[in-house]
């Protein structure tokens, strides 16, 4: 048997265009598991399963060299990302995150489907497909129905172990000798393999069941370490405690584009002080819809703020705000009254983008600087009885003829007499009174400074309110600012007759990170992570805004570019083509003889392939003809004699007319019989 024939025999054992049926079983089991896990929500999974099934019936295969497979990969990825469920519905953590797990499983499923449709399923390729099946199955083992896992896991283990047969040496070598008769040993081995597979499957299912809760807890903790959601953003009310309300982490809260001016961005505004706590709580306030529309004042310098995370849905704005435009799909509410707290609830997630036009100067009076009504003025002048009366005595020397001077002298007094610390232990009593009156002049954080300013201003007859928010000061490489959790700050606002509301920040160092002892610099790793996250959200936001026509156009352009690149690469490797019509015959007689003989072969059985010689064709015919069909065997032998004689003339001496005439006679005789 020649090597070519050996290759043919090998190829006939299984169609060359598809992998083993074991792999089909493994793929189907894994897909069924994934569909169960995703609670039958994704129609893409049954569609992909059907596509895998069809790949076993249709012999067409995609090219492994052209750009088509990459275009299909891109389309599948886009489809899955678009069909992926909203992350806000995925707050329950399983292994890590339900949404992430199912998305990863579906991506592996898409790749598996593509691999089924690509040609040449040799052993390494089938190994890759088996790994993909395992990834899909691993993603689906957390199904909510444990009984189903008990059925699918042994089935999958059996199929996976069966698929490993493709790596056995016997499968890869050409059969050079007759196969041995299957003995008892072989059957026992097979039985042991099946038993082992089922055992592995059952024990896996049992392990998953027993480990499920533990794994879920580990996954949840791991995920929480990336997103400390409970400590993000401002508190509903501000309590003067030993620690600052906002956890000073490097997590980003806001991203500002279009300005590098440092600014106080106010979130919550309080005017009522009760026993160390500023009120009212956000839930107790009366909110109303903000009038829609955005008319920036002429020559206003616009900037954009991206709110990345916040637990109260607050909008952080400068006091001198002139106008505001938030996302049209988001619900924006503003508090009735002078405090003017604004919240924004987007359709999904925490991310909210809004544009801000500040006033012409720092003291410009915009919608957040509404004049006080008599009741509000009274509230903003109230020094509650729990505040020690000596505070009023402390304030009197600081009072100057003009309110603005008073404000400056109070801030200067606090900065000169108190130092900054994130930890503030005031002991028993009203925290503000202790802070201001303790002869040791204790150090404290910004909340104490801000509250003290408010009380001292009120004692001097100047209406004041207490603000919590962020102090934006950290520049970014793209000409904007970034605000982190550690930039959380508290300050005061004072009403100065003739000017309006003004910001008063009496904290030493203005609350900047450099002035705090616990601050740390932002590492390169943190910067890289933020850059990656920003790039991803920019791309996904861009894709979300596209309509179908634009997607089709972009797809067409990508395909065009891919084809162009492919053509250029192919042109580099192109070899000058050979003339298309091969092998001119030395004479018409020989050509007609060859044509006639070919037709005769066609009538006798199969027409020979162009890529096989007549002799090879006749040899395979003789092998296929049983010994009982004597007539057919005689025909084949005669044809072989003819081919030998023909070759002798055709390739030995094609100019011999006598030999050609003899060949013609021989062929005529063959036709007659």
């Amino acid at each position, binding site marked *: 048997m020649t090597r070519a024939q050996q290759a043919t025999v090998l190829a006939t054992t299984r169609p060359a265009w598809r992998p083993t049926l074991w792999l089909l079983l493994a793929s189907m089991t894994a897909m069924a598991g994934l569909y169960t896990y995703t609670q039958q929500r994704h129609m893409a999974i049954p569609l992909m399963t059907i596509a895998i099934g069809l790949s076993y019936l249709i012999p067409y295969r995609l090219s492994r060299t052209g750009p088509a497979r990459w275009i299909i990969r891109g389309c599948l990825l886009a489809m899955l990302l678009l069909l992926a469920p909203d992350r806000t519905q995925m707050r329950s953590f399983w292994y890590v995150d339900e949404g992430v797990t199912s998305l990863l499983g579906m991506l592996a499923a898409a790749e598996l489907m593509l691999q089924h449709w690509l040609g040449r399923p040799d052993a390494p*390729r089938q190994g890759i497909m088996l790994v993909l099946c395992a990834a899909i199955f691993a993603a689906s083992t957390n199904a909510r129905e444990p009984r189903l896992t008990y059925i699918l896991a042994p089935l999958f283990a059996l199929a996976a172990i069966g698929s490993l047969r493709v790596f056995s040496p016997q499968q890869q070598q050409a059969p050079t000798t007759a196969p041995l008769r299957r003995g008892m040993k072989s059957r026992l081995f097979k039985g042991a393999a099946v038993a082992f597979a089922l055992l592995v499957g059952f024990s896996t299912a049992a392990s998953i069941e027993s480990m499920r809760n533990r794994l879920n807890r580990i996954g949840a903790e791991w995920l929480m370490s990336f997103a400390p959601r409970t400590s993000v953003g401002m508190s509903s009310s501000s309590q003067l405690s030993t620690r600052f309300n906002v956890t000073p982490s490097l997590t980003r809260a806001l991203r500002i584009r279009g300005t590098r001016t440092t600014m106080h961005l106010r979130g919550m505004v309080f005017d009522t002080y009760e026993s160390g706590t500023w009120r009212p709580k956000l839930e107790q306030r009366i909110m109303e819809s903000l009038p829609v529309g955005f008319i920036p004042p002429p020559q206003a310098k616009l900037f954009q703020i991206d709110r990345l995370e916040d637990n109260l849905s607050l909008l952080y704005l400068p006091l001198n705000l002139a106008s505001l435009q938030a996302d049209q799909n988001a619900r924006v509410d503003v508090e009735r009254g002078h405090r003017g707290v604004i919240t924004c609830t987007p359709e999904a997630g925490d991310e909210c983008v809004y544009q801000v036009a500040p006033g012409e100067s720092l003291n410009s009076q915009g919608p957040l600087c509404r004049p006080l009504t008599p009741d509000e003025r009274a509230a903003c002048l109230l020094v509650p009885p729990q505040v020690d009366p000596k505070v009023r005595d402390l304030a009197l020397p600081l009072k100057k003829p003009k309110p603005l001077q008073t404000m400056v002298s109070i801030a200067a007094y606090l900065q000169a007499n108190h130092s900054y610390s994130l930890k503030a232990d005031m002991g028993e009593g009203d925290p503000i009174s202790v802070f201001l009156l303790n002869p040791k002049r204790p150090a404290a954080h910004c909340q104490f400074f801000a509250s003290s300013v408010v009380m001292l201003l009120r004692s001097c007859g100047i209406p004041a309110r207490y603000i919590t928010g962020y102090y934006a000061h950290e520049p970014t490489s793209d000409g904007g600012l970034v605000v982190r959790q550690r930039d959380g700050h508290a300050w005061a606002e004072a009403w100065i007759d003739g000017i309006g509301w003004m910001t008063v920040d009496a904290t030493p160092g203005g609350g900047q990170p450099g002035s705090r002892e616990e601050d740390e610099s932002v590492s390169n790793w943190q910067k890289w992570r933020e850059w990656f996250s920003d790039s991803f959200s920019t791309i996904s936001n861009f894709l979300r805004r596209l309509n179908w026509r634009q997607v089709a156009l972009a797809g067409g352009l990508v395909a065009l570019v891919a084809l162009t690149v492919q053509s250029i690469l192919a042109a580099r490797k192109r070899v000058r083509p050979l003339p298309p019509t091969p092998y001119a015959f030395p004479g018409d007689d020989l050509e007609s003889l060859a044509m006639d003989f070919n037709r005769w072969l066609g009538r006798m059985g199969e027409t020979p392939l162009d890529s096989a010689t007549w002799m090879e064709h006749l040899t395979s015919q003789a092998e296929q003809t049983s010994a009982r069909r004597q007539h057919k065997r005689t025909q084949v032998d005669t044809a072989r004699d003819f081919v030998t004689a023909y070759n002798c003339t055709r390739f030995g001496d094609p100019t011999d007319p006598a030999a050609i005439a003899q060949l013609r006679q021989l062929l005529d005789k063959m036709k007659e019989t």
Partner: protein
Amino acid sequence: MSLDGEFSRKAKLIEDNLGKVIQGKSEPIRLVLTSLLASAHVLLEDVPGTGKTTLAKALAQSIDGRFRRVQFTPDLLPADITGSSFYNPTDGSFEFRPGPVFANILLADEINRTSPRTQSALLEVMSENQVTSDGQKRELPKPFFVIATQNPIEFHGTYPLPEAQLDRFGVRLTLGYPDHDSEMRVLFDQHTHHPLESLKPVITRDELLEMQQQVKSVRVDEAIADYIVRLIHTTRADVRLKLGISPRGSLALYRTAQARAALNARNYVVPEDIRELAVCVLAHRVVLDTKSRYGGIRNEQVIQESLASVPVPR
């Protein structure tokens, strides 16, 4: 000078002589003989102990010519093969002492155990049948035939042969393990002594040269040459290959096909000659790209696919 009955008789003598030593391997023996008659060097590649060296030695002993054997080791130097000049103190001159390549049949045993530098010393020897030393060319004796053996490159202490040198081997073939009956015969044949010890030359050097000349007289039709070129062309256009087959490869296929035809007592080449020889003459000349190599594609498979894609002349 055309083929005659004497050609077949002598060829049969060599074949029988080799058959006494190597049992049950008629096809590889015939391929080695084909290469010898086509003046194409042979590379035998297989695992140790399958009879590569024995076959090479048996071939050398069957021809009454000068035989040299070089055992390639990692510390072998080019001058150890080609020869070098020595200072003669008696007359103060440099005297060239020829190396083992100055022979009719050179057995390069385990050629891939030496460094590529030393392997490259054979480049000029194999393609131009000469050695250049101290600026002087020295012709090798005729006929000159290299039969090299090598272990698969996965084995310890082996270097891959450079592409340029692989291209200079006309044929690469493997012997494989003998079947059951042949292995039994091997055991009994070596019961008292090795059959190689009693092997006698069956043809002379001049007779071999004459046979090689006769092979060149075998007719190759234009359609057959066209078929060879088309076959070679498919490998150059194959995207899976980093390197297709050179014109030296097509020439080797042309010449070995002539030798095969002559061994089959034909004075013309038929397409079957090309198809039978294509894999062992061409497969070692192509270089797969990384993706294909790790994708499980083999050189032989590429050549077989080329054979299956090019129409055969009729």
